[in-house]
């Protein structure tokens, strides 16, 4: 493991430039190997200043290692980390303008909430500790608990202290390591909104590591989907969801139906693709990888409509799969979830919104399916159609 010569290490005194070192967080060919295992594989990433950025992926994908390298808790094997003009790759953790909200919170049990929050400011001999702590306690609604010890707080309150303790230092980059993982669902939803509000208010760069796609989509401006030490896809939540670039992204963010198909012929703005069983569908040219004929045709479950068999042909511009059979139906209130078997014996997942007036189908009913052309995408068939599925389910 060749390590580059340490540049500029320890030249700046602790904490200097913490407030002024502004700028984008740039990772260049960042790599971390543990023995023969490559946890992070030549990562290149620019995180704009002031953005809420999520690193999303299953456990073991390298997202936490990336975070720990930014925090200075791990040394990269190769690569460079910069904040604006400052190279911080080899700076000690306590000299970086970076603070972390730890997954375990790691609150100091012997100190009160107030002392926990003041810890970083005092180490940097900051002036007006009192007012800064008071401001952050107000922002996180912790004023009433300032005198309590962490053991006397609920999980949600501890989470807020961990956040307050980090943001009070106004770091150039705030790292959040699965910050809501230990909270129950209701509290987690509430904290997602809260975190987003706080980020908007303080305007710091937030780098959020999570395996929870919903959490990432709710809060982040930009999501990087990570798998096996690499970034699979990067983009805004809606863009990633509507335009997955890989089967992993298609399955890890929400659910996808992937059908094996062959491109029959290409036109200017769309292509006709042959599914098994003599069915053919159209895919917008923009959503079809060029130069590949063997593809997975994908469609999200909520984009599919169910029709009675033998009903009139749906509106033009919709793809259609006739002669399907409902094998399972679960009524869930807001929607109904169907499993529908196609003529080529593949089961597709369908979510139908309960807008009133829709028929409820039962297992065994003969139906046909339709979905809009613009909601149909195609991916290179050399990828594993199951990538990202089990992982997501195992992690819940």
């Amino acid at each position, binding site marked *: 493991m060749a390590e580059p010569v340490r540049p500029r290490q320890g030249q700046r005194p*602790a*904490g200097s430039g913490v407030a002024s070192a502004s700028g984008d967080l740039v990772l260049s060919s960042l790599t971390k190997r543990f023995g023969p295992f490559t946890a992070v594989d030549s990562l290149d990433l620019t995180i704009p200043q002031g953005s809420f950025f999520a690193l999303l992926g299953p456990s073991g994908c390298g997202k936490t290692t990336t975070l720990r390298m930014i*925090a*200075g*808790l791990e040394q990269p094997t190769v690569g460079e980390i910069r904040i604006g003009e400052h190279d911080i790759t080899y700076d*000690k*953790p*306590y*000299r970086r303008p*970076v*603070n*972390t909200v*730890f997954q*375990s919170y*790691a*609150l*100091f*049990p*012997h100190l009160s909430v107030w002392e926990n929050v003041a*810890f*970083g400011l005092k*180490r*940097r001999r900051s002036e007006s500790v009192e007012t800064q702590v008071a401001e952050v306690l107000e922002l996180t609604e912790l004023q009433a608990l300032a005198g309590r010890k962490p053991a006397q707080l609920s999980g949600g309150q501890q989470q807020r202290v961990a956040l307050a*303790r*980090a943001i009070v*230092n106004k770091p150039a980059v705030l790292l959040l390591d699965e910050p809501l993982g230990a909270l129950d669902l209701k509290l987690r939803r509430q904290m997602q909104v809260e975190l987003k509000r706080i980020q908007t208010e303080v305007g710091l760069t937030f780098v959020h590591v999570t395996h929870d796609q919903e959490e990432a989509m709710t809060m982040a401006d930009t999501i990087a989907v990570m798998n096996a030490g690499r970034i699979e896809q990067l983009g805004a939540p809606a863009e990633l969801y509507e335009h997955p670039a890989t089967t992993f992204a298609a399955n890890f963010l929400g659910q996808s139906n992937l059908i094996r198909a062959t491109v029959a012929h290409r036109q200017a703005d769309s292509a006709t693709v042959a599914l098994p069983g003599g069915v053919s569908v159209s895919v917008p040219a923009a959503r079809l990888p060029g130069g590949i004929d063997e593809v997975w045709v994908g469609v999200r479950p909520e984009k599919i409509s169910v029709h009675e068999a033998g009903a009139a042909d749906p509106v033009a511009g919709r793809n259609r799969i006739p002669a399907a059979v409902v094998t399972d139906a679960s009524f869930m209130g807001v929607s109904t979830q169907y499993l529908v078997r196609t003529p080529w014996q593949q089961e597709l997942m369908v979510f139908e919104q309960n807008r009133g007036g829709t028929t409820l189908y039962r297992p065994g009913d003969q139906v046909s399916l339709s979905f809009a052309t613009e909601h149909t995408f195609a991916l290179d068939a050399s990828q594993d159609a199951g990538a990202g599925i089990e992982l997501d389910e195992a992690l819940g």
Partner: protein
Amino acid sequence: MSGAAGVEGGPRTRTGRRFAGVPYLLLLPGLLWLGVFFVVPMVFLLSQSLQTGTLETGYRLTFHVATYSDALSQFARQFLRSFVYAFLATVLALLIGYPLAYAIALKAGRWKSVLLVMVVAPFFTSFLLRTLAWQTILNSDGLVMRFFRGTHLISLTSALGWTNGNQLLSSPLAVVTGLTYNFLPFMTLPLFASLDRLDPRLLEAAGDLYASPLTAFRRVTLPMSMPGVVGGTLLTFIPAAGDFINSQLLGNPKTAMIGQVIEGYFLRINDYPTAAALSFALMVTILVLVSVYVRRSGTEELV
């Protein structure tokens, strides 16, 4: 016997109201033990310290409080010396034991249990034998003595009054060394217990919040190990203050500690009231010192 009551109830213990007394039953053996071996001897000792008479004529309880003032004024020197030696031994044991416990708890990795066994290993031989071994270690032909002579350290320690003449044995230095050695495990184990519980992620968090490793130690590790420091210093200081072996084997008459005096009065002079009065005074003094110490260190809520 108390356990049998719980076992008999088996599956019904959660609901059965008749088992509300179980905690008290479980306390019983301990309370009996304390009663027979602590409270009774204590009352006996107190009464003896207030008696007058001789071994031949027998003792009678006369509430002769003057025994206390006589004994204390006669042995004030030994009394004070005991606490000074115990204090020095405690400080030294803390200085040696803390880095040792820290290394075992946080840096030893898979050697942790081996090292712990090594800390406890001296207990496999008797206290007396181990102290006698120090006579050999410190004697005039030993390596330690040769080192002290070669470096002229011996002149320095003699000038300071820690040793007398040209030898290490029979000196205050030897007694404090013996005390430190003998009670080191009592210091190390509680320290280990509290350092072992320290979550290393707290130190990462401290580093993340701009604390250098030294500051992280001062602000996080040290305060969080205070229960161990308090426990270890008590377990060292209390027995060291009453010790009568180290000074007897490694010291001289001028290093006599109060434990030695008490032992002599009980077993050789057979002046039971004086011995009892000194014992009682020692106990009360230690109790007062310890309560002040525990209160001032403010660790009640951490323990």
